[in-house]
């Protein structure tokens, strides 16, 4: 079995894991990050992309509010390429709890979260889609952040400083040597091969899967899985982040994400983090609730739904996900008699850097490394790995290059052949079970109204042309890609998206017979029944 060596092994390629890889790399500590699927495949890619000002938490969790205020400001400063500093507003409508509204400014002051009361009419001028039944409005310093660009940029800098990473590598077990992990055993899901990594310290940054991974090492964490679903609109509905000024509920926040808006979030307790998917019922809940704040959300066109799992670490038998702390948990498993094993989970996208810093501090202490954290001040360089996630980047690059042979393969989001080739180049192998999915994660491919139906076919042709797929694998990978887009597409199928889905069915099944098995059946065309 192949065996790799590193000082620190990081499990999980979400915001925390990639942030930790960068933090350690900046401190000069050798590390290797291993991710089961792909960058941000879990909750880091399944959230609002909201850079909290802290105002959301002033009533429920002062500590979280303060952390968000501080960290939000740091991310805006060090990673401006990932942030749309749109500002945010909190609004209440008729029928909302007026005591909560009346208390808001005082609570913000307690956490030193900047807030400014707005005239209701002025608020509606700032955001014309707001309801005409507003009773209160406040301006805050919310922003939106591109979590994919953030993690890819973190990983890119870590790699440039000597860190390594492996995707599609699933932890299958740990080899213990007394009170420590000697080897971590993996399965490479692309090749099917098993391999081991020997590390001085293992950090479990697997998010919602942290409990399952820890259990394999003989450690125990009690995690409540809270699935949250969100909806993506076809157009950007507001310029700013809009929050409902009330106690947290299903459909409180609308966050701009480039050319779209993202609405959510529900909170549904599920049994396993692998069960997470958006449902029709959640879609209805979100819209029924949100239209009081922004009426056009009832009639606007939605592009897709998606979801992520919040890992809520509990002590005792907490059962309501919203009341359990959303702060992060840093656990030294020396308490479970595994001395070189640390879990970092929970928390928020906004505080990922702080989580990485605190974890790296513990790692360095255990390693006896005396190097200060640099991520608080050191700018995060924009990378070629992360750049294609930005809406508008691909068309801009295509127009600037004026290459007549550079065909647009994804017409909804204008992603060209050269852009696809650049993304593939940056993937350095490690394609997982579908190269198309990996391309989609790193770009806008599949994110427009066609939801991958047309661009998936065109890009598949290109992958065949370039020799990236052979035999029937291109078709298998295409089916897997379209199948995974369907998870987010199927809950929003009414109106025009249903028309689009009908076209997709007519194309893939009606015209191309792709639902049928094409591996076993080639020769029977001329047989009689």
């Amino acid at each position, binding site marked *: 079995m192949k065996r790799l060596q590193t000082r620190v092994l990081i499990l999980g390629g979400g915001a925390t894991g990639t942030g930790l890889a960068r933090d350690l790399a900046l401190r000069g500590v050798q590390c290797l990050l291993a991710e089961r699927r792909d960058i941000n495949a879990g909750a880091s890619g399944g959230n609002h992309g909201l850079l909290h000002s802290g105002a959301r938490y002033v009533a429920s969790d002062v500590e979280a509010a303060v952390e968000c205020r501080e960290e939000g400001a740091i991310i805006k400063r060090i990673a401006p390429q990932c942030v749309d500093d749109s500002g945010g507003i909190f609004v209440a409508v008729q029928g909302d709890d007026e005591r909560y509204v009346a208390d808001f400014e005082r609570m913000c002051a307690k956490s030193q979260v900047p807030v400014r009361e707005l005239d209701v009419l002025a608020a509606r001028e700032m955001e014309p889609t707001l309801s005409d039944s507003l009773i209160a409005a406040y301006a805050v310093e919310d922003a939106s952040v591109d979590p994919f660009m953030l993690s890819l940029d973190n990983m890119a800098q870590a790699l440039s400083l000597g860190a390594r990473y492996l995707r599609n590598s699933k932890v299958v077990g740990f080899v213990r040597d007394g009170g420590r992990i000697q080897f971590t055993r993996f399965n490479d899901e692309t090749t099917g091969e098993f391999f081991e990594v020997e590390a001085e310290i293992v950090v479990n940054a697997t998010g919602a899967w942290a409990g399952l991974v820890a259990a394999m090492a003989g450690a125990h964490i009690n995690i409540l899985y809270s699935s949250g679903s969100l909806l993506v609109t076809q157009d950007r509905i507001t310029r700013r982040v809009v929050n409902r000024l009330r106690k947290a509920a299903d459909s409180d926040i609308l966050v701009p994400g480039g050319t779209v808006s993202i609405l959510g979030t529900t909170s549904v307790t599920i049994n396993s983090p692998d069960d997470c998917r958006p449902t029709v019922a959640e879609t209805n809940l979100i819209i029924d609730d949100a239209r009081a704040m922004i009426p056009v959300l009832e009639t606007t066109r939605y592009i897709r739904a998606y979801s992520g799992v919040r890992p809520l670490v509990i002590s005792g038998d907490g059962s309501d996900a919203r009341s359990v702390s959303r702060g992060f948990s840093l656990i030294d498993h020396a308490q479970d008699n595994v001395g070189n094993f640390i879990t970092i989970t929970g928390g928020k996208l906004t505080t990922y850097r702080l989580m990485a810093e605190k974890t790296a501090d513990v790692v360095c202490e255990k390693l006896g490394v005396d190097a200060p954290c640099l991520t608080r001040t050191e700018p995060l360089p924009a990378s070629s790995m992360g750049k294609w996630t930005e809406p508008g980047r691909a068309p801009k690059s295509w127009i600037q290059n004026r290459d007549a042979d550079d*065909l647009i393969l994804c017409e909804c989001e204008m992603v060209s052949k050269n852009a696809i080739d650049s993304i593939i180049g940056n993937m350095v192998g490690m394609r997982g079970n579908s190269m198309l999915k990996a391309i989609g994660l790193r770009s806008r491919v599949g994110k427009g109204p066609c939801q991958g139906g047309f661009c998936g076919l065109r890009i598949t042709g290109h992958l065949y042309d370039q020799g990236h797929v052979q035999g029937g694998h291109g078709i298998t990978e295409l089916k897997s890609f379209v199948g995974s887009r369907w998870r987010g597409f199927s809950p929003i199928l*009414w109106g025009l998206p249903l*028309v689009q889905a009908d076209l997709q069915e007519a194309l893939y099944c009606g015209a191309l*017979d792709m*639902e049928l098995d*094409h591996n076993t059946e080639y020769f*029977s065309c001329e047989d009689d029944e």
Partner: protein
Amino acid sequence: MTRDDAIYDVMVIGAGFAGMAAALFASAQGLRVVQAGATGGIDFSTGFIDLMGVHPVEEGHRWNNPWSAIKAVVRDCPKHPYGLLERREIEESLDIFTGFLTEQGLEYVGRKERNTCAITPAGTIKRTYRVPRTAWNGSVALGKKAPALIVDFHGLKGFSGKQLVETQQHNWPELRSVRIDFPGGRGELYPEHLAWALADPLIRERLVASIAPHAADVEYVGFPAVLGLNDPQKVVTHLEELFGKRIFEIPTLPPSIAGPRLRAVFDRGLPSQGVRTLSQKLVTQVRKMDGGMFQFDVGSGAARVTVVAKAAILATGRFFGKGLWADREKLTESVFGLPVVQPENREGWHRSEFFDPKGHPANTAGIEVDSRFRPLGTSGLPAYENLFAAGAILAHQDWMRMKCGAGLAIATAYKAVEELNK
């Protein structure tokens, strides 16, 4: 707004396969026909005419004999619209329909008792009943696994000869591909432009000259379907003469040129049969007049036309054709507000996996008809004496999974016209 003072025998609502077929059959029977409807599925058609290919869909069982397949589906799903048709009626409808296409220069071929295997632009093999003459040699070559070369072009996206060769490698080892520059083509190429360019015999000669060095040892040469718009057979014949090889076309991804070819045939052929076409216009209002006739508003604004017809055929399709429309709670029929057979709520419309072998329940939703193809009202009796329905809007069939789209559209249109004319 203009008013058409004529009283038509029938208004055909819809311009997909079913609408076009209904207008054709009705005018052939001497009825005075007016037709309205936006571009239907025809524009996204591959040009293949499926009759019946898969049943039961959950088993993905493919049939080489479509008539046996129809028998089986009617036995197992008695409400399938084919259950309301005799084989004779289906055959006759297809003969008239393809006969009309052939007359108009778009010849269709196939075998009487069996489906034909055709290669798709994805490289998969599908069964269909009638194919354009220009695609036929592809099926013959596939059947014989003959040495063949697929040609594709720099700049024509979504069609990869290499993909076809790779996906067929075990089945058709002597299939190869080559990518060439289209004569005079630069940058991005579109099927329609290539088709126009190939109207020029000189371009064909240059094309053959650039392929010939790659095609020495093959019997067949396949192209993406770009070989001429109005008279593709002429282009194919000329290429065969120049080449000394058998030539065939493979449909490109929709919207391919197959759609415009079919549409052009109907745009030429239906008016010359006396059909008044209000193309690209939707029916916006319908009123029942004294004496039972229908009055329709077609189109909107200044371009709106009002027409009166003694009867109507509803051939508006399912979701893509906008015959059915969905809000968050339910599916409704767009023109008459007819009852729609459908799952109880939206959670039941689609399955959680796109490629679920059972297909999606929303795709068997639609309107129910009596034995004369008259849509049923809430009472379970025909909603109107003089309203008939045909094509994809009919409930209890999933044409995309069963591979019965065009055949069902044509045959039910035929029957609806027969009943209307009784």
